[in-house]
């Protein structure tokens, strides 16, 4: 099946309306969706996405949109990016057949997309390279970023060093305390880390503060967002930068197994590693898609960050998306053992995929994710990030329900070095 469907009048994208009073998509015929035309030209994935930004930011966002449109199909920009992805990041990342683990689970064959082997140890760098090259092209000498666990901050600081850009990273005070190692890494790389003490002092507040910086310094500053959320064109642009994960995985899977995978599994916080894997496979309707969310202490405890599974549409950080908010529309601070999944919203494209039934929202608890973490260490000799361990924990449930000749591709989005303190502390060990 071709991954690029032709745009024609028979597609049913017009049924994907931007109408908050009428947005039920449960009956849509997925075979008639033109996936290449999502989002629409204004950044809408149905009611999700869009550009819900203060007028003070609109011009800066428009300037970015124009620059990205221009460079998106520019061969020399693409060549520069491909070069960095190959020689600096180390792409393509391997698709690895986890044979022992597959055998132990006794079902489908499990393949790991090894984003953990990228330079800086996670998928985040695929995106920061794209945005930093864009910043450089736009003549912006300064990039700013928000970070939760610190992975996007490190990826931003890394590419800023590589390109000679000034870099300021906003990070909630609580996260600065929890992720000291990444804070030090960013400082080594020449970035300034600014602790954020407003609100709940975590990722969402870091994002607020970065937006404030951007409003104040629009002339010389590029805001490098780390996930597939934010005002249009960020969700689309970050997706496109991350889509290399799925493009490689598809080709590798065809080479190694002779066919497409039966299921894709990835963890979803904001959703950039997941959409990166999923996007290329959207038209391949025989490929099941699982978006794994952090159920924290359990969905019924309220202590979780399973946005797609539990929340309703709301507006924050420049876009409409599923948003964890109370009855008065105030944003709730979510919880997960994994700081990288600890976000109250989720990228707009994910929301649409769930509404249309193209992807399945599932969740695993902290405890389950730790089992996934330890299994991969023990059985495959790979220490995964706690974020990725959520995807692994779901694979552990899914694989045994499938046949031995079926395949699952799971995104191993990052390595676990950063989480050693967290895991050790649970065992009463201080490193």
């Amino acid at each position: 099946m071709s991954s690029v469907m032709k745009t024609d009048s028979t597609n049913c994208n017009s049924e994907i309306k931007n109408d908050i009073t009428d947005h039920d998509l449960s009956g849509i015929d997925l075979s008639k969706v033109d996936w290449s035309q999502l989002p629409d030209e204004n950044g809408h994935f149905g009611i999700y996405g869009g550009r819900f930004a203060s007028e003070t930011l609109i011009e800066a966002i428009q300037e970015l949109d124009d620059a990205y449109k221009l460079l998106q199909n520019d061969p020399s920009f693409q060549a520069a990016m491909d070069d960095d992805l190959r020689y600096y990041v180390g792409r393509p990342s391997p698709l690895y057949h986890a044979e022992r683990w597959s055998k132990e689970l006794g079902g489908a064959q499990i393949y790991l997309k090894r984003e953990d082997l990228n330079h800086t140890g996670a998928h985040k760098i695929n995106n920061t390279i794209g945005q930093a090259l864009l910043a450089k092209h736009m003549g912006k000498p300064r990039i700013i970023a928000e970070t939760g666990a610190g992975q996007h901050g490190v990826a931003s600081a890394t590419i800023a060093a590589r390109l000679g850009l000034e870099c300021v990273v906003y990070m909630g005070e609580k996260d600065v305390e929890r992720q000291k190692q990444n804070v030090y890494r960013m400082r080594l790389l020449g970035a300034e880390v600014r602790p954020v003490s407003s609100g709940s002092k975590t990722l969402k507040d870091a994002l607020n503060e970065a937006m404030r910086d951007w409003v104040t310094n629009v002339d010389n500053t590029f805001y490098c967002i780390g996930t597939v959320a934010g005002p249009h064109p960020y969700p689309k642009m970050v997706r496109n930068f991350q889509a290399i994960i799925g493009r490689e995985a598809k080709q590798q899977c065809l080479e190694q197994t002779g066919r497409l995978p039966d299921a894709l599994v990835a963890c979803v916080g904001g959703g950039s590693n997941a959409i990166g894997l999923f996007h290329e496979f959207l038209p391949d309707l025989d490929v099941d898609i699982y978006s794994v969310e952090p159920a924290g202490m359990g969905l019924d405890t309220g202590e979780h960050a399973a946005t797609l599974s539990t929340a309703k549409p709301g507006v924050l950080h420049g876009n409409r998306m599923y948003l964890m908010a109370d009855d008065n529309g105030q944003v709730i601070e979510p919880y997960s053992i994994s700081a990288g999944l600890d976000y109250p919203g989720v990228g707009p494209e994910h929301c649409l995929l769930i509404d249309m039934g193209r992807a399945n929202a599932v969740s695993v608890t902290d405890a389950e994710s730790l089992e996934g973490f330890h299994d991969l260490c023990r059985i495959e000799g790979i220490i995964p990030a706690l974020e990725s361990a959520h995807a692994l924990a779901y694979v552990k449930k899914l694989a045994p329900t499938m046949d031995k000749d079926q395949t699952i591709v799971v995104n191993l989005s990052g390595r676990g070095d950063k989480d050693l303190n967290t895991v050790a502390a649970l065992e009463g060990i201080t490193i």
Partner: protein
Amino acid sequence: MSNRLKDCFAALEKNNKKALIPYVTAGDSNKSITVPLMHRMVEAGADVIELGIPFSDPMADGPTIQLACERALVHHTSVADVIEMVKAFRQSNTETPIVLMGYLNPVESFGYENFAKAAAEVGIDGLLTVDLPPEESEQMSQVLGKYDIDPIFLLSPTTTEERIKRIANAGSGYLYYVSLKGVTGSSILNVDEVSEKVTAIKSHTHLPVGVGFGIKDADSAAAISEVSDGVIVGSAIVKIIENNPDDTDTILDQIGALLKSMRTAMDA
């Protein structure tokens, strides 16, 4: 267009005066202070009141308004509470236009139709939704229009000529020109630049243009009133609450005095 806003600006123009428009976050620092504070602001010379709907994540605002939202949210001040406050205010004041200002999510969560209906019933005249630019506001504006509530939009120093036209078309009541790049509570204000931009805006619209961000005292209020139709004062007022959160009398007296000094300087 709401009659109160239209009448208010018409009367000001007739008397050759400019609008003094204070902002306060509803429920800051507690729910019971807001209505008496609104009355005090009118006594001190306010022509229109912008009443903030608190939000957990006020991205376009600086630390002063963020803290005000946090204080109001300690008491869970909701959209329903804000509407109740206006209802109480209208018991003894049916003249002064009230504009609610905030972020989209609390209003969307309440429901556009529910909000507009309830707001119209208690005499709310306009709604300024900071993160809802005209491009995204079609459904909201339709509902507001049905209940004669003015959608009020922001313009900024970076807004292009083409967008000014679009925004002027989409808005009613008045336009809110943000005088600085940056967030609320920022400092440096250049009156000449403001003057130039307001002139450009007025070449595209007959709507009154209010100017906010960076107006702190009587001098800056007077200077801005020279070049615009109205002066919007937010952080300077909220700062007074921040400094005396538990002292209702001081809050009322100091905010009253600040507005009175601005009124005097603007009318001089």
